[in-house]
């Protein structure tokens, strides 16, 4: 019987070997156990012996060939045999004895645990603000908060690094009244046009970080994350334009001086420029409804109510307390509401309802010395007013150069809803009203 000469497996792990040379030639007599050829493996050159006595024939491996283990490279024929005999009697492929061991089931639960944590989806509809991610809270606190419909972002944690414990959630639940399941919330969901992921925070670009020592690492979580998401959405969805002008605040200043004392007496609060501004904006907006509008699906909804958002900075966060129905409110009422909102904002005791639902936002950075700036429209609104510092400036009045307290106001709008002319007209009217505040009466 002809004996196959194969590339042998000579290492525990070996898939193929490199053929180096034949030590006998085609047609030579060979003896069993006699060195027949040399191969090269990971470790070294090895002599391979002949598997039988006979004549070497059908040599087909050449020096340098990489031959898979068990492939036939020659035959040792018995006297009288020829290669054609062998061609007929091809042996069946011998099955491999390798055992494929599948992953034991003991490992499977671990894989399941490693699934990324997401807040349980059902709760997202009922919670006022989506809170997925990295607020620090213990498992039981999270579970409890979810069950009670509490937004963890609002809960103060007394654990290390502000970690929220069960007791904190329970305490919060006792203080704050049961949340309304505001159905308006759902109606006011911003329609996300196809192709824009509302939750995308970073654009898909890998930018290498600088080689610098870290001072602190703050997770993008909670309110900060929400702001980030909204600003990205707004910046990449709404085509922004901004228009600026300067308002002569002389008359407004006088008005304020006149009303300061009486308002203080009536409300216990100081009359701020912001309040005056809010009053003026509320009045003017009624005449310019497109700046008090939202895009809903393929409609522009012009709102009847003017809910004014007053952007406020609290502890490095931007929150926007809302003066609801400002169109109906007197200056006095605005002062009172504003003062209350601001105070509670600083104490972090605003309800979610109070921090959302504005139809137009005013942002004033004048107290920081900023003279002018542009802002990003706060979705789902269509316009935002950016107010700067009142600066004594040289202006020309009736051909003369005089010093007047000038305040820069910039209106930034979503051009899908508000085009330049519309915005300009609003701004112009606002200027007129502020420069002649008696029109507000």
């Amino acid at each position, binding site marked *: 019987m002809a004996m196959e000469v194969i590339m042998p497996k000579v290492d525990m792990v070996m898939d193929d070997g490199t053929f180096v040379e034949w030590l006998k030639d085609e047609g030579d007599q060979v003896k069993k156990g006699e060195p027949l050829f040399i191969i090269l493996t990971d470790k070294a050159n090895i002599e391979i012996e002949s598997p039988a006595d006979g004549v070497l024939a059908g040599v087909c491996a050449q020096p340098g060939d990489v031959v898979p283990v068990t492939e036939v490279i020659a035959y040792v024929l018995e006297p009288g045999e020829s290669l054609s005999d062998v061609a007929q009697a091809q042996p069946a492929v011998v099955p491999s004895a390798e055992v494929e061991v599948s992953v034991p089931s003991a490992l499977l*639960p*671990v894989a399941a*645990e490693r699934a990324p944590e997401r807040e349980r989806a059902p709760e997202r509809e009922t919670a006022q603000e989506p809170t997925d991610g990295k607020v620090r809270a*213990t*498992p*039981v*606190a999270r*579970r409890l908060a979810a069950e009670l419909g509490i937004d963890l972002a609002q809960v103060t*944690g*007394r*654990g*290390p690094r502000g*970690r*929220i*414990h*069960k*007791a*904190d959630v329970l305490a919060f639940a006792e203080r704050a009244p049961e949340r309304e399941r505001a159905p308006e919330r759902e109606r006011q969901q911003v329609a996300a046009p196809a192709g824009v992921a509302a939750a995308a925070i970073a654009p898909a670009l890998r930018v290498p970080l600088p080689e610098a020592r870290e001072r602190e690492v703050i997770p993008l979580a909670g309110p900060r994350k929400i702001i980030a998401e909204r600003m990205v959405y707004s910046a990449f969805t709404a085509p922004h334009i901004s228009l600026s002008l300067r308002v002569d605040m002389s008359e407004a200043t006088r008005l304020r001086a006149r009303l300061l004392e009486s308002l203080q007496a009536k409300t216990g609060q100081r009359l701020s420029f912001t309040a005056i501004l809010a009053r003026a904006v509320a009045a003017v907006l009624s005449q310019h409804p497109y700046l008090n509008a939202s895009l809903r699906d393929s409609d522009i909804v012009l709102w009847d109510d003017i809910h004014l958002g007053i952007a406020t900075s609290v502890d490095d966060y931007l929150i926007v307390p809302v003066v609801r129905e400002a169109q109906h409110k007197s200056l006095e009422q605005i002062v009172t509401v504003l003062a209350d909102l601001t105070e509670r904002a600083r104490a972090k005791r605003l309800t979610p309802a109070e921090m959302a639902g504005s139809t137009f936002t005013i942002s004033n950075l004048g107290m920081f010395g900023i003279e002018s700036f542009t802002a990003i429209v706060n979705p789902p609104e269509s316009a935002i007013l950016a107010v700067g510092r009142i600066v004594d400036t040289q202006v020309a009045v009736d051909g003369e150069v005089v010093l007047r307290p000038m305040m820069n106001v910039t209106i930034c709008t979503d051009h899908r809803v508000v085009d330049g002319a519309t915005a300009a007209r609003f701004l112009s009217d606002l200027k007129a009203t502020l420069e002649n505040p008696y029109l507000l009466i």
Partner: protein
Amino acid sequence: MTEPGENEKREVSYLEAVREAMIQEMRRDPDVFLMGEDVGVYGGAFGVSRGMLEEFGPERVRETPISEAAIAGAATGAALMGMRPIMEIMFMDFVTISMNQLVNQAAKIHFMFGGKASIPLVCRAPAGSGTGAAAQHCQSLEALFMNVPGIKVVAPSTPRDVKGLLVASIRDNNPIIFMEHKLLYRTKGPVPEELYAIPLGRAEVKREGRDLTVVAYSIMVPRALEAAEQLAAEGIEVEVVDPRSLKPLDEETIVQSVCKTGRVLIIHEAPITGGVGGEIAAVIAASEAFDYLDAPIRRLAGLNVPIPYNRTLERAAVPQVEDIVAAARALALEGR
């Protein structure tokens, strides 16, 4: 689940309980025998086998030369032949010399031979620090065996537990590391006189509480109970769970306790890194108890140091009652 000896009045020391278990089981089963250094006339290094030579003779209370590898091999071979040897390693530290036989032979023969042979041996060893015996005579090496499939690990804390668990271990058909603690030998407790077995893999709640769970074994159980008494006066109620056997581990009892209290402190004498506490912590973290956790799972264990000789340093190297009190209190108050 009732435990034997719940109403027992008879008080016996841990050491005597070990001896009682061996004597009673050896009377019952002629295949059981004890083998170790100085276990005959000397009565064993700690006196555990005192009197046994007189009753059972030198064949069944068999003294050996100082040859931990051969002792373990002898136990393995005898067990392979169907006997039930108890091998005594004088200090758990010396089990390292027996490791090849215990790990590569005893633990594996049942599996390697396709279930056709078994090794019913018990390797008893006193472990632990507190006697000034220093680095090479004070270790608790149970963690080394946690990671070897085929070998079980038992670490009883009371006289009643040690007797029942040793009897169960002798009757078990697998190799078992039976970790006694030197400081526990003199402790006394109620022990039923009759022969009884406590099943392996069953933990015991030694003290009920609602504020936090302490999982402790061996010497840490009495220390945890003492700490719990002190904390009770402060209004902190500690639940103490004693696993009793580490492998197989009664995960259910531990998990249920943590679900109840929401806070857990795992305590052992052996150094913290790579210790059994890590295994228990992972089991808890992966269980349903996770949803009830109100604080991170905490461990209190030996420092990563060899046991020092100096008395003060020796105390400082492993958790003492005051350390347990402080850690438990801190955990109980975390976020409260």
